């Protein structure tokens, strides 16, 4: 099926559509321009001289030609249309057609006549052939068509009218301001004040759970992030892996992501170097704790295999259940899958280390006691690192986390400014309500 792209939002619409299904932009003019351009290109393109056309016997009665693309018969599709009074009268009207047209409204892509979609008071006796209603401005007609052609969304009449003239969101300027607010302090290493982020519940408990492990405790780690999310998750995972190494835990790592094992090995090596430096250990002294990292394909349905056959996966070095399990997951679903597929089977306590976006979704699992600890985002990582530096002073505070906190403040300041300025602009540029 051929399609036509909306010049405004890029949505693919069926060829021949008058208006965009997504934003209501008029497509007919764009399609006509495209057809004209194609025609011009065909005419101007050099090619072989046309061969003589063979004579084809023409039928005596050709079938009726399809209507030409144009707005002559549909004046309500023009933006300058002044209202239903300007519409030509409908010759064949009946209530069944009204109902059918209204039901088909989302599917006929803007071919709806204005008399069909304007609200008609049932008490008024209006002849269908001469509908009378107040003039409807073109912009409102466009808005109504857009609302009729899109799936229902949250909103009420007040919001609907306020959307009729939304202020432009200048994303380029927003990105530029955000980029400069982060780039300049990072590039010039400006000495900026640093505030401590809020400490969320769950971090203390995660620290205590690891601190309370016996020496050489068996810890199973589910590594559910890869380089795409490493920028955020590495900073959260690093202090926890350092803590596990400091507690001499026997770690085994399993990942369902192809890029997971490589990410895990890189971060564990980074933590091991930090730990060596802080404890003045040589590589030979800590080489007894080799960390197995396994990749398992098959998605979340295979997680039960991890719970039941861990000995087989790791070649018999581990016994079920582990003393502790830790999920390093970029998304809330990673932790949910573990809590649904593995935790009910092996009954080991679970600590979740996730991105900031997963926190609101995982908070109920923390409140219900299914999670023994929850460390999320840069603020969770900072809180954990602070606890580590406070109670185990040999481990140095992370300069990268300090820088993350400062630059987060600058980024959030830009967001705050954008929201305030956007609201002010919307307040002063709002069109009067009809």
């Amino acid at each position, binding site marked *: 099926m051929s399609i036509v792209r909306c010049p405004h939002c890029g949505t693919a619409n069926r060829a021949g559509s008058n208006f965009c299904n997504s934003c209501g932009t008029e497509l007919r003019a764009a399609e006509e321009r495209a057809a004209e351009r194609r025609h011009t290109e065909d005419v101007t393109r050099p090619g072989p001289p046309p061969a003589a056309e063979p004579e084809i016997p023409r039928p005596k009665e050709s079938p009726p030609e399809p209507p030409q693309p144009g707005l002559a018969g549909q004046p309500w599709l023009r933006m300058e249309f002044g209202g239903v009074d300007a519409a030509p009268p409908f010759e064949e009207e009946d209530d069944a057609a009204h109902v059918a047209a209204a039901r088909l409204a989302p599917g006929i892509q803007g071919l709806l006549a204005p008399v069909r979609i304007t609200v008609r008071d049932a008490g008024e006796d209006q002849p269908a052939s001469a509908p009378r209603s107040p003039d409807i401005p073109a912009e409102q007609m466009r808005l109504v068509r857009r609302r009729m052609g899109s799936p229902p969304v949250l909103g009420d009449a007040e919001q609907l009218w306020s959307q009729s003239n939304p202020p432009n969101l200048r994303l380029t300027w927003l990105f530029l301001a955000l980029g400069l607010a982060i780039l300049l302090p990072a590039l010039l290493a400006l000495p900026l004040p640093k505030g401590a982020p809020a400490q969320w519940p769950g971090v203390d408990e995660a620290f205590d759970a690891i601190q309370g492990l016996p020496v050489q405790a068996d810890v199973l780690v589910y590594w559910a992030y890869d380089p795409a999310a490493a*920028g955020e998750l590495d900073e959260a995972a690093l202090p926890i892996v350092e803590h596990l190494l400091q507690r001499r835990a026997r770690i085994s790592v399993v990942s369902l992501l192809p890029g997971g094992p490589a990410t895990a090995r890189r971060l564990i090596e980074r933590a091991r170097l930090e730990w060596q430096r802080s404890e003045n250990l040589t590589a030979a002294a800590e080489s007894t704790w080799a960390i197995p990292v396994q990749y398992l394909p098959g998605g979340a349905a295979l997680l039960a295999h991890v719970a039941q056959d861990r000995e087989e996966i790791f070649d018999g070095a581990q016994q079920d259940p582990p003393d502790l399990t830790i999920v390093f997951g970029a998304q809330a679903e990673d932790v949910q899958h573990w809590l649904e597929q593995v935790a*009910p089977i092996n009954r080991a306590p679970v600590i979740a280390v996730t991105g900031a976006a997963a926190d609101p979704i995982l908070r109920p699992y923390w409140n219900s006691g299914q999670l023994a600890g929850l460390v999320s985002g840069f603020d969770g990582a900072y809180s954990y690192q602070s606890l580590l530096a406070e109670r185990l002073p040999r481990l140095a505070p992370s300069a990268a986390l300090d820088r993350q906190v400062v630059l987060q403040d600058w980024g959030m300041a830009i*967001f705050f400014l954008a929201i305030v300025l956007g609201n002010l602009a919307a307040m002063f540029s709002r069109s009067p309500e009809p």
Partner: protein
Amino acid sequence: MQSSALLFDAIGAWVAFFFTLMVFSALAGDNPLARLAQHILVGAALGYAAVLAARHVLLPRLFDPLARGEAGVMDGWLPLGMAAVLIIAGVDRIVFRTAKRNAPPGWRRLLHGAGRLVTALLLGIGLGAGIMGALQGTLIPQYLRAAQIGFVPSAPGYLPLVGLLTLVLTTATLLHLYLDPARHLDRQPGYARGLMAGWLWLGQRALWLAAGLIFARLAASRLSLLIARITFLTDMIHDTAFWTWLQSL
């Protein structure tokens, strides 16, 4: 050996540096460099995943045991047979779909049926595991926890109040999502209309608050990723001789 590892590290860092810049260039508008970087990254990720799957899964867990003829070899032949049927059915669908319209459809129907059987089996296993997991890991524990809060005699006095507020906000949000005031409230008496309108108003605000909270954490998360990438760039720049020269000025 050490010097070659350092060399590869340096090359990798510079490749990452330029690819980051190429991807960031999309901010200035769609351009061939950004598209090239995206295509290369997707291709490299897929190729890497395919090599990993072949090296760490197919070879050691399927083909090696089959080649050695170990006991329990059905465990290996069964997925191999399923994969073969799926692949042949897929190739038939993709390659021969248009080329052999007039071919006798018997063997193709059989093949497609076998392919659907395997797909249904995999889908059924996934759905079964997902539904059971959701029941035992989310629905039942969350329900039990919510139910326990109100019935603990030693619970602090504010907990029932919190429970009541949660109930009011939850029902208000659900009402706001599923109730159309224009259709459903018109025939109600005046006092009910006012009550329901107030409840809907509350639900709308609760929804906005929840959406705002989720969006704020999402913004913090994405900002962390942006900061990590930008600090990677600035660290690279700080390590260059050009930056050292610039600082000496």
